[in-house]
């Protein structure tokens, strides 16, 4: 059983398009996260939700909009994609804030 799953695994799109990445966790965790990993493998938090409520919103362009329809899902919608958005995006979840986080397999986004 996959604990944290993301779809799609790969996403190739052109500048200016809008795309979404979906994340689901079956661990029963209360907190979910989105991270961006750049080409140098640096992982940076973008957003965090606790029980569907936004608790962390880093300095991310407002073209990025997370949505949590329920505790088990956290989706990421990106408008007007730019070349600099190319990266690997990871979803993660934890039982509570500050607990160990469990990561999904990642979505490699390539903007051309």
């Amino acid at each position, binding site marked *: 059983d996959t604990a*944290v799953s993301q779809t799609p695994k790969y996403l190739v799109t052109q500048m200016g398009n809008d795309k979404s990445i979906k994340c689901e966790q079956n661990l029963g965790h209360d907190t979910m996260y989105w991270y961006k990993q750049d080409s*140098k*493998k*640096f*992982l*940076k*938090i973008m957003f*965090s939700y606790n029980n569907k409520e936004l*608790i*962390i919103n*880093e300095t991310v362009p407002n073209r990025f909009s997370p949505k949590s329809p329920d505790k088990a899902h956290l989706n990421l919608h990106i408008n007007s994609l730019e070349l600099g958005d190319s990266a690997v995006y*990871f979803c*993660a979840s934890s039982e509570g*804030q*500050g607990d*160990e*986080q*469990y*990561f*999904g*397999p*990642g979505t490699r986004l390539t903007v051309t």
Partner: protein
Amino acid sequence: EDQVTQSPEALRLQEGESSSLNCSYTVSGLRGLFWYRQDPGKGPEFLFTLYSAGEEKEKERLKATLTKKESFLHITAPKPEDSATYLCAVHRGATNKLIFGTGTLLAVQP
């Protein structure tokens, strides 16, 4: 400013050659230090959490230790399957977020 620095950036070992990876941090209000392993094309996999100076955790060939300024991940008699990027992250309670280091890429040759 909160900072996490890992060294070395890359490490190549022969199978059986023990070594240590370092994670030094400057953060106020540390609530926990986490070690993760990341294989190519996969998400980080949780290894350990350390909460206070002097604490140690072990798992197979890995042992993590924590002081007030740094953490070490000791690898004893590594095998090729231990090859991966090892990431360290600190949790600062006031912000409730993890701050990651840039990782150490470990290659263990048979």
